[in-house]
């Protein structure tokens, strides 16, 4: 959601990301806990498993290319065959002079999913190396709502049932890659728990502040 308005100040270490309430950081780990004012989840029961998130983000990145370029569905209408991939439907929209819709589909399905997974990958790699993820984590979060492969999957289900009546359909490799991509991304995002990430970042910042403040 939106970033907080007030610039971070020195003393209380914890600022709610939704309502900018300043809180004292909990002394001990306390599982799931919520902002007393707006109800945003601020603490996580789970430890952040950076290695698992790294592996899942890498898997999603590998799946991306076949998912967008290989045929999703083959159609056979009375002997006339055809197939469609995400890239070919973007091209079709572009040629039908619906450039804006083509651009929206391109950004949400071709550009954002790998960009967002790459940002997550770099952020996790940097965290594992003991550094700070910097802007990469921000990009990952900004990108989350603009990557829409799961919505496209539902759209594919509706489009194929609409066609189902007057054409015979066969599912393509691209579709299975896309399903795998959606599931991988889903687990990766679940494991990269935003509350756990925020608390880990604050901890790193405090540690850096303790011995690094000049």
């Amino acid at each position, binding site marked *: *959601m*939106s*970033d*907080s*308005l*007030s610039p971070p*100040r020195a*003393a*209380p270490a914890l600022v*709610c990301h*939704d*309502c*900018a*309430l*300043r*809180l*004292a950081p909990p002394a001990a780990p306390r599982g799931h806990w919520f902002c007393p*004012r*707006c*109800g*945003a989840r601020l603490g996580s029961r789970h430890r952040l498993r950076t290695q698992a998130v790294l592996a899942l983000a890498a898997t999603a990145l590998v799946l991306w290319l076949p998912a967008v370029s290989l045929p999703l*569905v083959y*159609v056979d*209408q*009375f002997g*006339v065959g*055809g*197939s*469609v991939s995400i890239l070919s*439907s*973007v*091209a*079709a*929209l572009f040629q*039908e002079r*619906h450039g*804006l*819709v*083509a651009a*929206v*589909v391109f950004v*949400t*399905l071709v550009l954002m999913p790998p960009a967002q997974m790459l940002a997550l990958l770099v952020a996790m790699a940097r965290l594992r190396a003991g550094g700070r993820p910097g802007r990469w984590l921000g990009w990952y979060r900004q990108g989350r*709502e*603009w990557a*829409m492969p799961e*919505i*496209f999957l*539902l*759209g*594919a*289900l*509706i*489009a194929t*049932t*609409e*066609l189902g*009546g*007057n*054409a015979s359909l066969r599912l393509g490799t691209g579709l299975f890659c896309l399903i795998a991509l959606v599931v991988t991304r889903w687990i990766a995002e679940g494991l990269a728990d935003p509350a756990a990430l925020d608390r880990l970042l604050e901890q790193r910042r405090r540690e850096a502040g303790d011995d690094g403040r000049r």
Partner: protein
Amino acid sequence: MTAAVESPKADRRRSLAWALLVAAAVWLVPANLLPIMTLETLGREQAGTIADGVLRLLQSGMPGLALVVFTASLLIPILKILVLAVIYWRTPAHPRPRGAIRAYRLVYWIGRWSMLDVFVVALLAGLMRFGVLARAVPEPGITAFALAVVLTMLSAHAFVTSQLWEPDHGSGANP
């Protein structure tokens, strides 16, 4: 709180959110009135709006999918714009901030599912381009609809949720 204590950044962001929301509401009108896609089957041309798509699914015996498309394409876009407008209207220092942020979080994550119809049209247009007996051609309504959805998402993005509450004076002084 009065507008005087508000930071100019929050003020600017709220104006931006309003502007994007109004633009989205304007685009939603042609999105619902113009056809989004023409289906040509066996020489018969049939231009359909979003509502026609829902009816077609209903008539072909798929009430479940019809309900999904109805919710994602007709109900959610309008509901999201209305909910956001009410929230923006009562901000800053919303009288019931906790309810407001719950509604905001809900429409924020549900709104993206409106893109469903854009993807259906994209897929059908790509699949049935060169069909001899059946063709699907996208129509201007889908551009308006995509714009409405994207603008609503950008508007929700521009809104700064912390201004639902009065600025946090208390805990700054008390550690």
